[in-house]
């Protein structure tokens, strides 16, 4: 790496390369924004779903669970819990925590009202209907 290849050349390639690939990235992001409406299930972003997302966030569910594969790996994937368990199970589950089973991983009880539970379930239903290119591989998540 000596001789004709100088530091100034290396620097110019750095700036040029970075700018080029950053612009290419922005172009892809722009195209993604145009395609998203066909995939992201935005038509179902109701007031309930929006409220449910906020409950999801302010209880930090992501600190134990993953959602579409992102988050923590301590507890089941919830992106597809709606089709896996159904709305009634989810609500009953939330109300019966913690299990208190000795030695078993525990989930807190968040003391959610019926309305809050409905919103949360609406959010999980909406999440499960996003087009994720057929991920996860099976219903167990």
């Amino acid at each position: 790496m000596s001789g004709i290849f100088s530091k100034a050349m290396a620097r110019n390639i750095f700036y040029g390369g970075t700018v080029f690939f950053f612009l290419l990235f922005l172009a892809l992001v722009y195209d993604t924004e145009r395609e998203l409406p066909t995939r992201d299930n935005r038509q179902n972003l109701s007031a309930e779903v929006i409220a449910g997302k906020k409950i999801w966030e302010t209880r930090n569910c992501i600190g134990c669970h993953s959602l579409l594969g992102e988050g923590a790996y301590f507890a089941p994937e919830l992106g597809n819990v709606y089709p896996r368990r159904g709305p009634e199970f989810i609500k009953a589950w939330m109300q019966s925590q913690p299990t208190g089973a000795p030695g078993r991983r525990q989930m807190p009880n968040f003391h959610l009202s019926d309305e809050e539970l409905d919103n949360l379930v609406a959010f999980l239903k909406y999440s499960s209907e996003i087009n994720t290119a057929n991920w996860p591989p099976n219903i167990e998540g």
Partner: protein
Amino acid sequence: MQYKSQAVAMPYFIAAIGLFVGQIIFGLIMGLQYVVGDFLFPEIPFNVARMVHTNLLIVWLLFGFMGAAYYLVPEETETELYSPKLALILFWVFLVAGALTVLGYLFVPYATLAQATGNDLLATMGREFLEQPLPTKLGIVVVALAFLFNISMTMLKGRKTAISMVLLLGLWGLAIFFLFSFYNPHNLVKDKFYWWFVVHLWVEGVWELILAALLAFVLIKVTGVDREVIEKWLYVIITLALVTGIIGTGHHYYWIGAPEYWQWWGSIFSALEPIPFFAMTVFAFNMVNRRRREHPNKAAVLWALGTGVMAFLGAGVWGFLHTLAPVNFYTHGTQITAAHGHMAFYGAYVMVVITIISYAMPLLRGRAANSEKAQVLEMWSFWLMTIAMVFITLFLTAAGILQVWLQRVSDTPMSFMTAQDQVALFYWMREWAGVVFFIGLLTYLASFFVKGEAKAVAS
């Protein structure tokens, strides 16, 4: 130490190490909760321990980066820091804000914390790594901007080297991409899409500039190799990093609702991301082999070489392992991810911060290098922590492969919790490796207190 104002780096380094200890304690708590599920429940639920663990990690690395900048920039620019006083004030602001945030996580229910800190005004909380309450996030921005002002003003009045320019670019990038943490659309897909602008464009983008600049600085100092040579390498490495890493963001866009062409863009570009990490390893060994002097600080040289190797293993090899879309389809969000996250963060960012601390701390304490005895102990801590991290990674990888097999590949897939029970043995082994890591960390702490014949006073 050549410039008086470099001394402000010291409190930053001390705080970094202190918070590192806290991070590992919470790591051990979580590691135990993985196998003894009701350990410390309900006092410290898993998610709370996880927030503390990961946020302490980020905060202490930021302390490390800032301390490194305060040490490095005066020496590179050959001028005193613009305002050492501002640096000290920011230190206390950041430390108090960080401590309050952690106490908030531990003692206030998260929903209450959110309500009390204005999450209803601007909802930003409850997303992985970005759990901080709004005032903390704003505080981070204010501290970062004031810090950047201080560093930029210093640069303006002094010599401009490639190393300090690259460092500054990385630090500005860090602050700018953090701004995406304030963008939290209701649309989950967009939320996730832009969340990665913080997380991925940090660790596989601008932080790599910081990493490479710090490594280059220490290598110049300990090897005496010509600056021209080292800075040329630096540019080559960061070019490779950004050319592959920016579009490599696509490896997070396979299964979150983004268009499917990201499977191609993400796979191809991120498959090339190991190259800059490989170049870093070659760079470090090459420079040390061509050294023009024997620096008395052997421990710092060891950390510098270790950074190259472990960053390549953790980010490069373990990253490549699961980055191609057809593989990631099965490994996404499993213990494989955790294995990679641990070794990559340790090998790249933990180790580079320790490298600069190892190099700078003796100088800040008025000697070129620590005593032989202290260095031997420090090198023990290097091997204990590094080997323990290798084993943590191997055990998590084993757990991950089994998890994928039982829960995702099998024709009769097990449920998540059943599969977790099957791999409990590996979680136990991870926890024991974690205990060794902790012993290594305590050894590291002890090395600061070992007396003995110090090496000559530095210039």
